[in-house]
């Protein structure tokens, strides 16, 4: 089955070529670096909240952890942007790898759970900690599992690709 030609057009564009082939340290590796920063912020903060909801470090008050959602969204913004740039650099490599789709699906569900945590657990400022933990425990478990899955899938992309560039 032939691969769609638009993948080749993206790779042949000057921006995509520059990202991949530039000698400047601000090319592909810079984008990849900020993708790592973004995931450190997003998953670091989310994991902190998840683990607290599951009862670890109970001396940390739950309500103030609401502020960490801003950090999570900043991380997500960085990763959505850098993710698109990475996709522009190596579109064939990503689109022809089933692991990439698994990653996106897991991220999708993890972000959905993040919004549920924000709206159902942390939005009600009058709720007690016991209430919050009751509402959030199952969400927290899924969140952790999905993020570990998403990160693993992301890491595996470097080792499971079939094509690095559009095959001629």
């Amino acid at each position, binding site marked *: 089955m032939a691969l769609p030609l638009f993948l080749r057009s993206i790779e042949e564009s000057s921006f995509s070529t520059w990202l991949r082939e530039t000698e400047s*340290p601000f090319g592909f*590796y810079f984008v*990849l*670096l900020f993708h*790592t*920063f973004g*995931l*450190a*912020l997003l*998953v*670091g*903060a989310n*994991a*902190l909240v998840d*683990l607290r909801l599951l009862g670890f*470090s109970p*001396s*940390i*008050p739950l*309500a*103030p*952890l609401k*502020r*960490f959602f801003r950090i999570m969204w900043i991380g997500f913004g960085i990763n959505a942007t850098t993710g698109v740039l990475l996709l522009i650099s190596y579109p064939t490599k990503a689109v022809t790898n089933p692991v990439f789709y698994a990653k996106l699906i897991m991220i999708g569900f993890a972000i959905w759970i993040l919004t549920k945590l924000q709206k159902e657990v942390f939005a009600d400022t009058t709720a007690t900690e016991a209430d919050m933990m009751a509402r959030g425990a199952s969400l927290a478990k899924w969140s952790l599992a999905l993020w*570990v899955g998403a*990160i*693993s899938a992301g*890491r*595996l992309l*470097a*080792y*499971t690709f079939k094509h690095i560039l559009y095959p001629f």
Partner: protein
Amino acid sequence: MNLAHLHLLLNHFPIIGTVVGVGLFLFSLAGKNDDLKRASLIIFAVMALLSLPTFFSGVGAEGAIVELPGVSNVLIDRHEGAAILALFFMEITGALSLAGLWQSHKVSRPARWNVASVLLFSLITVGLMARVGTTGGDVRHPEIRASADPAANEGTLGSIVQAFEPSPAKFTKLMTADKYWWAFMMDMHFIGLIMIIGAVGALDLRMLGFAKALPIASVHRLVPWALAGFAINVTTGVLAFIGMPAFYTYDIAFWIKIFAVLLLGLNAAAFYLTDTFKVVEHMGPGEDAPPSAKFIAASSLVLWLGVITLGRYIQLYQSTISTR
């Protein structure tokens, strides 16, 4: 300064430092002195940290002399195998020491099981480090060898220990035999970094004034997660290095990353061994940390982001250090 020189400079720490640590540890037990015990645990942790660049620079030292006449590959391999075994015990001693220090912080002294295991592992480490030193000396000092024959001759004790020392070449092959094993190690390295950034990041941000409603003491309780993440990353890092030693050794980004990790050790010392931690640890919600704490928190964040950056750039800066 080249890698061979660095290796000769650094090797003093794991070999002599551990002897000093054990000496102080034994005196602390005899004198029932908790302060001295804590000091020796700090020494073990610092020696464990310094053992890492010592080990890594060994490959560069080997590269500098392996082609020279009179240098035996057999002796070099024996030294490297001894070093791998000793490093394993050194890092366990370091991890146990950090656990003991954490316990000292919570209940004023380490638990009995911790004292016993630190004693056991540190004594084994001292013995193994002595062997690393001797086998290393054998490589370039024929005057200390038991016989004139450059082959590796073992005494009784040496033969017993030899059985546990891995063959460096086989270990390297094992790490790179399966790409999914490598992917798993890199994956765990990222999980470790998330544990570190999540815990240390939260503490640093709180000290800098973010989410002031959190009491600092509670956020500080996250530190064991960071220590666990660091342990995962030291393990996966060392295994990765053994898997591709030349790749990492001749890469400037790798060395600056290791240097940044050493600076983080200094940062931790500045935090815990000065007044700063005492002032900050009981701060409740709403309280603002003093400038010294903010400086330590900011430099911690910058250094960890630096570690991530340098780690990511290792691939781009391959072969940036000359092999000679």
